[in-house]
């Protein structure tokens, strides 16, 4: 029931964004274990590898070369072994159409990439806190939607 460390994966092709995310998450008081991937293909290979320890929460950049965030999302939601994963879309796009499409395809969280570091920290912390409640408190995961 109670978890030790929250295991998190991030797929983002932008090295600066990966760096900032990692810095931000280090400064949050929730204990985490973060793995980074440079595109969707790498992430999916990891998630579907045999005997893998799955993360509880995955952050997906929407625009990535090779395999984009939406493709990853669809593959994750189409794979019953990955059904417990919470998926957070992490994107610069504010288009309502994009947002709704990702939710309909099974995303739990949609984050507009914040433009300053403190805001980024706040946003990640809120997401982690909420996801923690979903891991530990029998809330209905089918209805887990958050937009920030």
């Amino acid at each position, binding site marked *: *029931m*109670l978890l030790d460390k929250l295991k998190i994966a991030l797929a983002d092709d932008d090295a600066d964004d990966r760096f900032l995310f990692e810095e931000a998450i280090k400064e949050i008081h*929730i204990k985490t274990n973060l793995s980074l991937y440079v595109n969707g293909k790498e992430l999916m290979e990891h998630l579907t590898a045999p005997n893998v320890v799955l993360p509880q929460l995955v952050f997906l950049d929407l625009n990535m070369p090779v395999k984009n965030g939406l493709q990853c999302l*669809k593959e994750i939601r*189409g794979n019953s072994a990955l059904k417990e994963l919470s998926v957070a879309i992490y994107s610069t796009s504010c288009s309502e159409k994009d947002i*709704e499409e990702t*939710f*309909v*395809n*099974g995303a739990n969280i*949609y984050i507009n990439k914040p433009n300053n570091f403190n805001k980024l920290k706040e946003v990640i912390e809120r997401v*982690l*806190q*909420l996801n*923690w*409640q979903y891991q*530990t*408190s*029998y*809330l*209905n995961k*089918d*209805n887990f*939607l*958050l*937009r*920030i």
Partner: protein
Amino acid sequence: MKIYVTFDYIKISKKILDEQLRGMNIEYKFKGFGEVEILNDLSQKKYNDLKETLGNYGVTIVDDDKDEQVQRIKDTITHMIYTDEEAKMYKVSTYLSDKMDVPYTQLASLFSESTYTSIENFVILKKIDYAKNLIVNHNLTLTEIAYKLNYSSVAHLSAQFKKTTGLTPSTFQRIIKKRREKPNE
């Protein structure tokens, strides 16, 4: 064909416990939310077996006293929101300290120590979770839901929903509806 179902979690949990405990010839008594008194002596082996059997159903025996109290706070909140009609007359703090017989300040600090949130925020989260279920499964109007969940007005419910999820109730409803209509790929 699709059917939609709703669950009475407390009833399901009790039923599972009852079947498993009886199955292992263990005599017991329910002592309230999440508390079960075992009347026979349990050998360590039998205790471990029980732990494993219940684990298969997502039922965890809590060894740690703190975890157990936090779990009981959560269960009491669930009961307050879902089933106890009379709870509407009390403040959350009064209700919890009454039911659990522990001063609220003590419950509150224990809770925030181990859950990364506060009791107040957890209550909101749980209420909104219930509101979501009511919106998608029962087609209740927001006015009906606001009344059922003891909000002073629809505007208050709507604002809290938006604050908690980032979405308006109607956007939320539209997304879930589209998800359900989406053909499986």
